[in-house]
């Protein structure tokens, strides 16, 4: 009997998961495989790829023969890390304030956070050109960080807010009753509980920053090149698809490794807090 009943449930599961699975297959896995294959091929005479059977490890060999590409990777990860940390520092108080404000004002405040999306991303970056130019900060690494933080801040605020909003005020009251001051109850109660929000916000900021090429191109100076710029240059200006594909794969692998490490750390972190309570 139980088998018979399980079948429709399986079917429903299938029907429900089919669209997202198909989406991921077509729009993530297939393109990713195309990029993997492209990285083992040779550049065509006028760009694109050389006709088939030409397969080689040239692109990877070229990348590993030179420390310069590693340098760009390291630099990009540093910029992404700095952007993420700045976003956390800026977004946390704001998200906390929104979550603590009266319920009817919250929607308005959240709306204000996402309001900048109403205008085009490039237009907003151009606005920064006009703001930073007169004060002499334009075309500096600092300008790149400002641009990156500005663009990605809402992606940190929103997950943090969603998390902080759900906290039960009773927990803080309990902490107070047990003799914790505001500072202690924040660090011992609010912050550990908000870690999932911090992690998902960090993922939403860190990963796009790694691939971003427009901000360094428009706000950065002569030395501000990140992996995103390098990959874009291979596909457009240099018309070297295999090299661009190889770079993309290395970036994807690095991000996956990092995301895996973060997920592992997050799980451990959460278990850790559970153990304490």
């Amino acid at each position, binding site marked *: 009997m139980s088998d018979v009943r399980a079948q429709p449930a399986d079917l429903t599961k299938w029907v429900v998961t089919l669209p997202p699975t198909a989406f991921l297959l077509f729009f993530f896995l297939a393109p990713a495989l195309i990029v993997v294959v492209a990285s083992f091929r040779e550049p065509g005479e006028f760009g694109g790829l050389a006709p088939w059977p030409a397969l080689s490890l040239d692109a990877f060999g070229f990348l590993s023969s030179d420390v310069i590409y590693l340098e760009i990777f390291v630099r990009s990860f540093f910029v992404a890390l700095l952007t993420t940390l700045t976003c956390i520092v800026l977004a946390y108080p704001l998200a906390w304030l929104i979550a603590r404000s009266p319920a009817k004002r919250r929607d308005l405040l959240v709306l204000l956070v996402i309001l900048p999306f109403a205008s085009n991303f490039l237009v907003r970056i151009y606005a920064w050109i006009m703001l930073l130019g007169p004060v002499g900060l*334009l075309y500096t690494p600092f300008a790149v960080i400002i641009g990156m933080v500005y663009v990605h801040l809402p992606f940190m605020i929103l997950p943090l807010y969603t998390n902080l909003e759900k906290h039960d005020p009773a927990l803080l009251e309990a902490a107070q009753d047990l003799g914790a001051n505001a500072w202690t109850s924040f660090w011992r109660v609010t912050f550990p509980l908000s870690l999932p929000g911090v992690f998902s916000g960090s993922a939403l900021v860190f990963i796009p920053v790694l691939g971003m090429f427009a901000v360094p191109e428009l706000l950065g100076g002569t030395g501000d090149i990140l992996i995103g710029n390098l990959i874009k*240059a*291979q596909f*457009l200006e240099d018309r070297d698809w295999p090299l661009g594909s190889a770079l993309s794969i290395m970036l994807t692998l690095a991000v996956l490794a990092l995301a895996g490490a973060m997920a592992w750390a997050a799980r451990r972190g959460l278990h850790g807090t559970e153990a304490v309570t």
Partner: protein
Amino acid sequence: MKHLTWLLLIVLSAARAEDVLHLYNWNNYISDDTLKRFEAHCHCRVKQDYYSDNEEMLAKLEAGAVGYDVIVPTGNAVESLVRRGALRELDKSQLSHIANLKPEFRNLWFDPGNRYSVPYATTVTLVGYNVDKMQALGLPTDTWALIFEPKYLEKIRGRVTVLNSQRELMAAAMKYLGYSVQEKDAAKWEEAKRVILRAKPYWATFSNSTYIKDLAIGNIWVAHGYSNDMYRAREDAKAAHRPFSIGFTTPREGAVLAVDNFVLHKSGQRPDLAHRFIDFMLEGGNAADVSNLIGAGNANTAATPYIRSEIAAEEGLFPPPQTLARLEMLRDFEPKMRRTLARMWTEIKVR
């Protein structure tokens, strides 16, 4: 009967509406006025799509975009399209005004005999500058030394931008060193790389478009860029009544020339309209519009009388013969050389 007339009218107008020329063009590269006149002339509509660089256009065609009757690629992209067999041969009998082309822009290397392409507009990659600042600082404006020599750059540190383009910037350095921009010897390109790395600390940034505004506002004083952009910066500064003016000069060592051409894409449905369009654009008055609109150089002799005198007389836009002889067009390199140059460019960016 009345109904029938209406029906006929509707059917006729529907048939008329199908006369559409699909033009795949650079942004702001043909004036609305010219288009309106052509539409009146051919009783058809022109539908435009835009691109902002040749690679973007080639990539889109490579990805299978079809239905474009006329495209406006630069010389090296024409060569690439011809070699891929993507173009339709021109029928000269339908181009009665083709004799209007300037002799120096006929038979160019990318299309001997103009079998596929009709030159439309030209651009020189040169140096634009803040005239007042250059005079005050006593800097020379007719040489690449202005953007490459530390002794000059010391006076304008952080006030210089160069193009964010491997081909263009490295070509400028090669010209400064007295080499061809088609040089095959990697050692000479290494020299160019060193010239660039020596000058780089003095530059504010690599910029492909923001330099127009930066020059016009006064944020930067010297920019490596395209002649029509410099023209626009000059006009913008004039219109805003800035206390300074913008000038531009082709460096005496020579520079890069870009020639943009009309070509017919094989996938176009209306080669008849495409030919009429190209022939219309070869008429002097129509050919002149692009120069008056954006300050582009012109490949058409008959256009000259229609071009506003302050534009036609500007040597940065219309290189005189002795300058033209020192200009070179960029040709595509083979994949190995491209990778070598790309590697140098990455080093330029990182160091």
